[in-house]
């Protein structure tokens, strides 16, 4: 197999960002998640929860609530603006100022014609949703305190609004408040403290469900304006509520990190007196749960501990299948680390700055498993802050380490680096072609002579780089005319091919010598998560979100024999059950039969010359093979060689000098830097 020296990198201080709001679109099975830095991520729930799209945020921007209207996404935040997002170009399409101060809640009615927005000044503003914009229609009666939460009745005739200390029901025609319900303070709370109604839901049988800061979930009758039931579920706040589409199951998220489920059941077997009964409690978070979504089969929760947890409900899903497993999404599904193979440099992408590090050196030799002493420590060479307010979207480092590029929503910046032993010289390339105003994905060619930037309509802009300037060469457009954004780009080592994959599942291959589209890989139902072109055999290796691996020959324009063999044999069930996607594919220059892949919890070297594993045999058998004598090893060894020593992984690649770089981010380091959780007294501590 081979021995490698491993650079174990733990100085990438990546901090994930807390979740603030989420909205699930039942029609397209997509979940939109907003984080506290005003970035929006879209997860495809039908494709193994893959993070399809990321819209970067702004400094000073904030999102308090998200809302889907059909396939359009709206958000509202404390800046007082309603933003509609362009999901094809991954940017805000336009912003409309509501002129009511900071906005706390946004909600659309079932007919998708009106959008209600709850503002700081106590007004509920109604906007009309037109084909490509929204227009202000009217205000409801102004209240004395801020509107914290809103919910439309499914028929669109009433709106329930949660303000400080009370809940108001507005009539949508007249805009006047029909009922006023006062929410009680908790027991023992001082008289001056106000109760905030954090979340509210209006059901079709005229029941209003509210969650407040006293820790209660209350059920009210919307016709008479009276309290029906109270459930005290926590000592702390109830921050979020969500109800399933058939209105039989309700979930409430608390500050303690628990998610409590209520179901509309009758205590006796007959149908008549149904009540909301507390059934399950899920304790999947350590910090506050601020965002909840109830899909048809699962409970999705997220909050201040930055993890997105999908918990399938076992009464709606078959047990002991992959569908019923708990799913935690910790790290982004795209690579934040760029490695310059020839020069041993690492580029780390943070939302507001970039860091360039040089790897350390060691000249020791040792047995497998030893840690070698460092001759030279890794050092941070450049700390580059972004200019302006927009966060960094993507970044790239050329393989020789001489060019650095990054892009935000508004601009692309290119820098030339000259790094000798201790001298670092960085100069900005000022005049970039005007057509290059932003890029969703950036990639350098292997000889650093060209920069590829993906832009709208799935096309790729090719720019040539010379000593100190860059010139526009060509725009590569796909034949299919798709409008989906490109999320993966790879240039082959010999500079002949360029592969681009978009979120619609299409992979286009361009011939760089002729600057034309060469071919398109047959579309597969799942989105590709990583791709690479083999330097020797010119085969395109793709890994998809459902863990399938394909190898496509570019010269013959068909799948290779090995790939067909793999499909016939089928992948090992343990491989298919993994829940994190493969984010990087690399090759070994010395051994052309090796493919190196990694996901968050393992990295694997696939040896194409060895037989494929049997479904019944053990998949990760590297440790057991060591203990078995030599003659037996050949019988049991198979193509997939998995190593789980380094976890959790953000990146694993091979450098030109046969050493593996492994970038880890220990979870304890993240956990210690999270904001304050609530204090819970445990017995005997």
């Amino acid at each position: 197999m081979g021995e490698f020296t491993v650079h174990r990198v733990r100085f990438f201080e990546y901090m994930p960002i807390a979740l603030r709001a989420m909205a699930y679109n039942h029609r397209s099975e997509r979940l939109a998640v907003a984080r506290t830095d005003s970035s929006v991520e879209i997860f495809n729930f039908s494709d193994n929860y893959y993070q399809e799209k990321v819209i970067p945020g702004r400094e000073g921007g904030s999102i308090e609530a998200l809302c889907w209207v059909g396939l359009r996404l709206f958000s509202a935040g404390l800046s007082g603006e309603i933003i509609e997002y362009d999901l094809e170009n991954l940017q805000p399409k336009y912003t409309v100022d509501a002129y009511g101060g900071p906005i706390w809640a946004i909600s659309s009615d079932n007919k998708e014609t009106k959008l209600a927005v709850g503002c700081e000044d106590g007004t509920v503003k109604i906007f009309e949703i037109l084909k490509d914009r929204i227009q202000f229609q009217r205000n409801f009666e102004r209240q004395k305190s801020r509107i914290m939460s809103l919910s439309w009745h499914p028929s669109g005739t009433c709106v329930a609004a949660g303000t400080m200390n009370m809940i108001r029901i507005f009539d949508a025609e007249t805009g006047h408040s029909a009922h006023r319900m006062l929410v009680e303070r908790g027991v023992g709370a001082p008289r001056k403290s106000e109760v905030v109604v954090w979340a509210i839901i209006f059901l079709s049988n005229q029941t209003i469900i509210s969650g407040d800061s006293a820790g209660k979930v209350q059920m009210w009758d919307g016709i008479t304006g009276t309290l029906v039931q109270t459930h005290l579920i926590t000592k702390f706040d109830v921050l979020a509520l969500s109800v399933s589409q058939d209105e039989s199951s309700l979930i409430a998220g608390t500050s303690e990190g628990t998610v409590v489920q209520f179901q509309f059941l009758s205590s006796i077997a007959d149908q008549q007196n149904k009540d909301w009964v507390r059934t399950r409690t899920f304790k999947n978070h350590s910090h506050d749960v601020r965002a909840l979504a109830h899909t048809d089969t699962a409970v999705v929760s997220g909050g201040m501990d930055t993890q997105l947890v999908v918990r399938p409900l076992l009464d709606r899903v078959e047990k002991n299948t992959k569908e019923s497993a708990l799913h935690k999404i910790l790290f982004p599904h795209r690579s934040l680390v760029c490695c310059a193979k020839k020069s041993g440099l690492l580029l780390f992408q943070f939302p507001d700055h970039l860091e360039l590090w040089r790897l350390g050196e060691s000249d020791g030799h040792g047995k497998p498993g030893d840690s070698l002493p460092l001759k030279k420590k890794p050092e941070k060479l450049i700390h580059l802050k972004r200019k302006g307010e927009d966060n960094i979207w993507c970044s790239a480092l050329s393989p020789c380490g001489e060019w650095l590029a990054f892009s935000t929503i508004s601009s692309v910046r290119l820098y030339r680096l000259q790094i000798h032993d201790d001298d670092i010289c960085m100069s900005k390339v000022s005049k970039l072609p005007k057509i290059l105003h932003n890029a969703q994905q950036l990639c350098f060619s292997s000889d650093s002579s060209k920069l590829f930037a993906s832009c709208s309509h799935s096309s790729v802009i090719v720019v040539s780089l010379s000593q100190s300037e860059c010139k526009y060469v060509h725009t590569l457009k796909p034949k299919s005319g798709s409008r989906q954004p490109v999320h993966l780009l790879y240039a082959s080592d010999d500079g002949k091919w360029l592969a681009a994959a978009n979120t619609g599942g299409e992979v286009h291959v361009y011939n760089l010598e002729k600057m034309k589209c060469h071919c398109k890989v047959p579309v597969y139902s799942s989105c590709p998560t990583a791709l690479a072109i083999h330097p020797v055999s010119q085969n395109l290796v793709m890994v998809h979100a459902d863990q399938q691996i394909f190898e496509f020959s570019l010269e013959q324009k068909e799948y290779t024999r090995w790939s067909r063999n793999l499909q016939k044999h089928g992948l090992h069930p343990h491989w298919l059950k993994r829940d994190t996607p493969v984010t990087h594919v690399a090759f070994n220059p010395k051994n052309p039969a090796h493919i190196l892949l990694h996901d968050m919890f393992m990295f694997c070297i696939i040896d194409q010359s060895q037989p494929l594993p049997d479904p019944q045999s053990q998949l990760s058998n590297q440790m057991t093979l060591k203990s078995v004598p030599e003659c037996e090893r050949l019988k049991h060894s198979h193509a997939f060689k998995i190593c789980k020593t380094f976890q959790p992984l953000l990146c694993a690649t091979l450098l030109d000098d046969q050493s593996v770089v492994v970038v880890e981010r220990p979870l304890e380091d993240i956990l210690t830097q999270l904001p304050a959780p609530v204090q819970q007294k445990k017995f005997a501590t």
Partner: protein
Amino acid sequence: MATRQRGQPARLTKKQKNENAVKTFVSAFDSSEDEGPEEVTFEDSKAEALQSVEQALQSARREKDLLKEKRKKRQELFQEQKKRKLLSDEVLEEIDSSQKSHSEEVQDASVTSQDEVLHMDEETKQENEKLENSRKLIGNYKVTVKPSELASSQQKMAEDFIQSRLYGPGSRRTTSNQLLSLHNKRAINKSAAVEFTKKNWAEKRKSKAEMKKMRWRHKHIPSS
């Protein structure tokens, strides 16, 4: 009763007062027991009474006069202070004149012909460069709104509200390290608290020491 050594002199009690009265009465009696009463004519006593009344009136008048004078002095003082606060007349005249000329200019700009209007508009534009988004109101007042400050202050207030509700006083919070230390305490293999020893102690000192070491190395070791 003996007099006190410290403190205020004791007030006379009722008994003592009676005794004093008796003493004076008795002394009056003692001095002229055998002689007859003194003769005091009616006129004398009348004159005395009148005098006493006059004196009382005079003293009252004097008091009133004193008060009047005090009031007068205070008023004068305030007036002086007020005068000092207000701008001098000259400055007021200047401002008046400049405002009038400004309004005249603006009126002129609206009255003159198109060509001239263009020129004047440019001038007024230059004058109004700083005052973008300004509107003229009646009475030579101008209003300028700085939208960004207002919006960002409202946003900041909203952020402060949510911060104080979730993390402010009364929210009973602890640190993440405490939470992890609790896990360690209650785990099957009990271990020490997280960050039991503080590893990042004296960071600045350590980095300074590193820099000094590097400088020493460059200085003293002959570099190639």
